[in-house]
């Protein structure tokens, strides 16, 4: 690249960051830049997530801490340049424009875009440059620990509730099973005793009859026990439904009776009004007849 003139403006010589005469542009700059651009970039969302976790638990602040937002002047400048770009692009749409110069427009648009890019880059860098001091970091870590503790506590509570529910559920099933098992054992014991007693009476037909009778009684007892169990279960269920879902019955009854009373009174009132109208009509009729009779 050719550099001929000395740069004196707008940088004063002592503040010039680089002297273009001493720094010769590298011929391999393009190749390096292309290679850099072609390097695979990390996946956006995943890297963000990774950075977030890293920042959360690392001691140094990362990229997500935000600094000073863009000032009004900066915003104005950016919007002005953006407006400029849109105005330039509007020339592309004007098909009747005789002075249309696509190359000049391309140059202008390219420069404006680059200016906006430079300004946004600066704002982004400034936003990311503000660093937190040790005290602020400590506060953030404390806050994170508090939140984590609270979450752990809530999770433990949830787990405890879940465990209790499981235990009580098992207890309920176990108690029901115990009742049924007791009943069956009791019935079978009685049946066995009846059978044995029946067998002990004698091998003859006369002797076997009481045994059959006792057996039948035992079976009846078993059936009775089962039905009693079913009834009690049903009753329990019905009561529990009443209590839980339908509410207190007597309160509902009081409500019903009150509404019935109200309806009755309304009926009475309407009848009285109708009767009043009838009476008034009769009186009017009588009055008219009296007038006609004169």
């Amino acid at each position: 690249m050719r550099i001929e003139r000395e740069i004196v403006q707008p940088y004063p010589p002592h503040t010039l960051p680089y002297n273009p005469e001493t720094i010769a542009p590298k011929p391999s700059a393009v190749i390096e830049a292309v290679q850099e651009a072609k390097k695979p970039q990390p996946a956006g969302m995943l890297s963000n997530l990774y950075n977030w976790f890293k920042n959360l638990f690392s001691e140094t602040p990362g990229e997500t801490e935000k600094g000073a937002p863009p000032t009004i002047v900066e915003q104005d400048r950016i919007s002005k340049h953006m407006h400029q770009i849109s105005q330039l692009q509007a020339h592309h749409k004007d098909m009747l424009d005789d002075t249309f110069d696509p190359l000049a427009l391309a140059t202008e648009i390219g420069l404006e875009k680059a200016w906006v890019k430079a300004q946004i880059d600066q704002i982004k860098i400034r936003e990311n440059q503000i660093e937190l001091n040790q005290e602020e970091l400590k506060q953030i870590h404390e806050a994170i620990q508090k939140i984590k503790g609270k979450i752990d506590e809530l999770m433990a509570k949830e787990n405890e509730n879940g465990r209790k529910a499981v235990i009580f559920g098992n207890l309920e099933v176990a108690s029901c099973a115990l009742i049924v098992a007791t009943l069956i054992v009791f019935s079978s014991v009685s049946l066995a005793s009846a059978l044995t007693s029946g067998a002990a009476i004698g091998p003859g037909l006369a002797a076997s009859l009481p045994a059959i009778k006792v057996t039948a009684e035992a079976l009846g007892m078993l059936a009775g026990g089962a039905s009693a169990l079913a009834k009690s279960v049903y009753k329990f269920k019905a009561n529990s439904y009443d209590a839980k879902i339908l509410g207190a019955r007597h309160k509902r009854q009081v409500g019903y009776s009150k509404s019935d009373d109200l309806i009755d009174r309304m009926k009475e009132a309407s009848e009285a009004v109708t009767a009043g109208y009838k009476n008034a009509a009769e009186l009017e009729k009588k009055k008219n007849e009296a007038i006609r009779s004169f």
Partner: protein
Amino acid sequence: MMTNKIKLDKWQAADTFKRGYSLFRCGQYDEAANYFLMCILLAPKEYLYWSSLGHAQRRGGNLNEAIESYKAAVLIGGSKDSDLLFALAESLKERGDNRPAFKALKEAILHAEPEFQTRLKMIKSGWYKEFKNLESERSEN
């Protein structure tokens, strides 16, 4: 994660670009090109800086350098920027590289917005006639 050096370089690149932009607006294209060059040394991955350098070089009369800068800008990330592609096409045509110019123009048409696309197609048809005439003249000679 962006290191402090890269941050500083990017910051300075943006600052330098703005100064170059001011010079460009004042019509001092060579000085502007120098600033854009410094800008690229600090942030070589920004294709917009490369294209700005190309514009400044072109206005300064350095057509060959401008074409190289435009090509670099296209390679780095401006392969879908219709304005940049058109500038490259125009520069190539000016130098006499008709075929590459035509190719660049086709690329520009491909990535342009509909209205600009129509304009570019009209330009393309004009160029086509021009190139045909040139070829016929050459063949006659």
